[in-house]
């Protein structure tokens, strides 16, 4: 039988998957896997459009935040507990895998997971005379202040830390900064809970980077990662998936865990792309699809993935090996996984937009932190309400 596998285009992911498919086909000569990829920006559109046309894939990759959409749109089917025992999943994988659970059923399994960390430019640190990368927020501010460069007119020409809500900063704010200020982003029912002092303090900390400390500038070099790559930012917060892109940076850089707060509390955000079985797979194809899914979430596949893509294995025992934990690059990310949270998104793009707008209102329109926060909370709650009604 032939089954179809869909994911988005990213060179190393495609390469890794080709490798996995080759291995899989060697082991299962009666199954061929057709590997189809789309540009990231249009990936969802394509999956949805294909479903409308009734031509969906058998195994499909999806961001965990899209799950509700995919389930309610009947794009994917629940995993058969006979093939993928629930207990086993919950014991072998990192707990964030529970984001794939709806009711009693799991809808997909990740090969790899990702978390956030603080990247820093060793050359700029050295130049500023800082020996160690920051381990808490206070040190972060100090390091940023020390490394930022301004011209005669006070314009930043090299950032202390990048500011990019459209990138990973909204996760940092939501899952790390709020919690470090003593709040929670969402309550148990999944409703917005950050419209309080903790949320405001977190937002203030973030916007102050530009307005008070003047160590960062939203829109500087267009994207935070671009500024960092160009050597024009000393620090940036980003995910595992950026490792590949930073590999070619023409300077030395390092990674540390996200800074702790004054009390040493740490938090992180973790996410992943899972693989699920398409709603249209039935009979023979479904069996083949299950076999394939089992293979690509096996420890062997995770090793391959770690090798080629650099993403962290989703199974604890594969991930948390001694060598991995001591790796200067992988280590901080893996440690982050231990205390990471996973936001339950209903409409990831729209929810991120509320965070972007919230910061913009403060920075561009001079709205007070509290008002802006309240407005963002209301907007996000509306999105959640619309999705859950």
């Amino acid at each position, binding site marked *: 039988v032939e089954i179809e596998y869909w994911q*988005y*285009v*990213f*060179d190393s992911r495609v390469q890794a998957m080709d490798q996995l498919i080759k291995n899989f086909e060697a082991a299962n000569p009666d199954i061929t896997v057709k590997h*189809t*990829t*789309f*540009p*990231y*920006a*249009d990936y969802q*559109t*394509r999956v949805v*459009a*294909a479903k*409308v*046309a*009734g*031509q969906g894939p058998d195994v499909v990759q999806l961001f965990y935040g899209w799950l509700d959409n995919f389930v309610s749109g009947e794009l994917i089917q629940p995993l058969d507990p006979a093939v993928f025992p629930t207990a086993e999943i919950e014991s072998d994988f990192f707990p964030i895998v529970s984001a794939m659970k709806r009711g009693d059923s799991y809808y997909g399994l990740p090969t790899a997971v990702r978390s956030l960390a603080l990247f820093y430019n060793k050359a700029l640190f050295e130049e500023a005379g800082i020996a160690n990368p920051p381990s808490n927020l206070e040190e972060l501010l100090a390091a940023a202040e020390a490394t930022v460069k301004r011209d005669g007119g006070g314009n930043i020409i090299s950032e202390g830390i990048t500011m990019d809500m459209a990138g990973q900063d909204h996760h940092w704010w939501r899952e790390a900064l709020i919690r470090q200020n003593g709040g929670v982003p969402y309550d148990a029912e999944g409703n917005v809970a950050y419209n309080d002092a903790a949320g405001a303090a977190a937002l203030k900390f973030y916007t102050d980077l530009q307005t008070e400390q003047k160590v960062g500038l939203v829109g500087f*070099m267009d994207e935070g*990662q*671009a500024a960092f*790559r*160009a050597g*024009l930012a000393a620090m940036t917060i980003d995910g595992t*998936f*950026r490792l*590949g*892109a930073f590999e*070619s*940076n*023409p300077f030395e850089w390092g990674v540390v865990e996200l800074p702790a707060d004054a009390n040493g509390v740490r938090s992180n955000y973790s996410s992943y792309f899972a693989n699920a079985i398409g709603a249209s797979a039935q009979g023979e194809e479904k069996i083949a699809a299950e076999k394939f899914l089992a293979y690509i979430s096996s420890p062997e596949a995770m090793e391959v993935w770690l090798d080629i893509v650099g993403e962290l294995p989703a199974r604890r025992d594969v991930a948390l090996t001694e060598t991995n934990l001591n790796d200067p690059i992988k280590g901080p990310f893996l440690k982050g996984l231990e205390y990471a949270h996973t936001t339950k998104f209903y409409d990831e793009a729209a929810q991120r937009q509320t965070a972007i707008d919230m910061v913009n209102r403060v920075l561009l329109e001079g709205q007070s932190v509290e008002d802006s926060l309240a407005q963002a909370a209301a907007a996000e709650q509306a999105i959640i309400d619309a999705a859950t009604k």
Partner: protein
Amino acid sequence: MTSSELAANRRDIRPGRIIIWTLLVIGGLIMITPLLFMFSTSLKTAGQVYDLRLIPASPTFANYVKVLGDGRFMQWFFNSTFIAVTVTLSNVFFDSLVGYTLAKFEFRGRYFIFLAILSTLMIPTEMLVIPWYLMSSQLGWIDSYWGIMFPGMMTAFGTFLMKQFFEGVPNDFLEAARVDGLNEFTIWWKIAMPMVVPAISALAIFTFLGNWTAFFWPLIVTTSKELYTLPVGISSFSAESSIQWELIMTGAAIGTIPTLVVFLLLQRYIVRGVMLAGLKG
């Protein structure tokens, strides 16, 4: 004699003219600055992309080698060419035929049909994409050349342009051919068409450009990489995490070069073609 020849007849070159000429040239150079940056970036390495000097520190063709070396790129290039050429031919054929019929035949409903076709200019394409997609999937056109091409096979703009031109062709030519025994189709094809060659080249160029750069619909309707058009392919260089600008610019540069060459070769016809149309609102 046209007004420009008239102007040329004035032998005295006044300082005003030199100033105007200089201003025009400066304006023109400003116009192409973004293009220059496109070419310049395509000659840079990933690390230099953010260095906005126009002349790259160490120009390299590595990006071109990389882009062109990828067999898929040549495939996309072929796809774009094939699609743009086919759609252009179709437009030249059908838009002319319809324009001719509306210009030269008298029958009830002619004006209504003209208005109906013209009114499609006001329908935003965005409105049609979903129904098109549904239609394609029901008819099995998804992921095929035909699927990419069918929405553009005829356009109201082309029909309008050609109608204007054909109205300028004297009836005597058509009647002479009728007396010579040609049927209506041959009259159109053998007599009327050759008389509007400038219009056809203008139409062809506009259609070609429009389809060569088409992005949104090809993106929706193709699934396999082998069928991507150039712009879709170029944008697939951008991935979730890091955008490879130097490659995008290289792709864009390669994509622009053919249209550039075609335009430079045919710009006289465009101008003349549009000119003869005498666009009467």
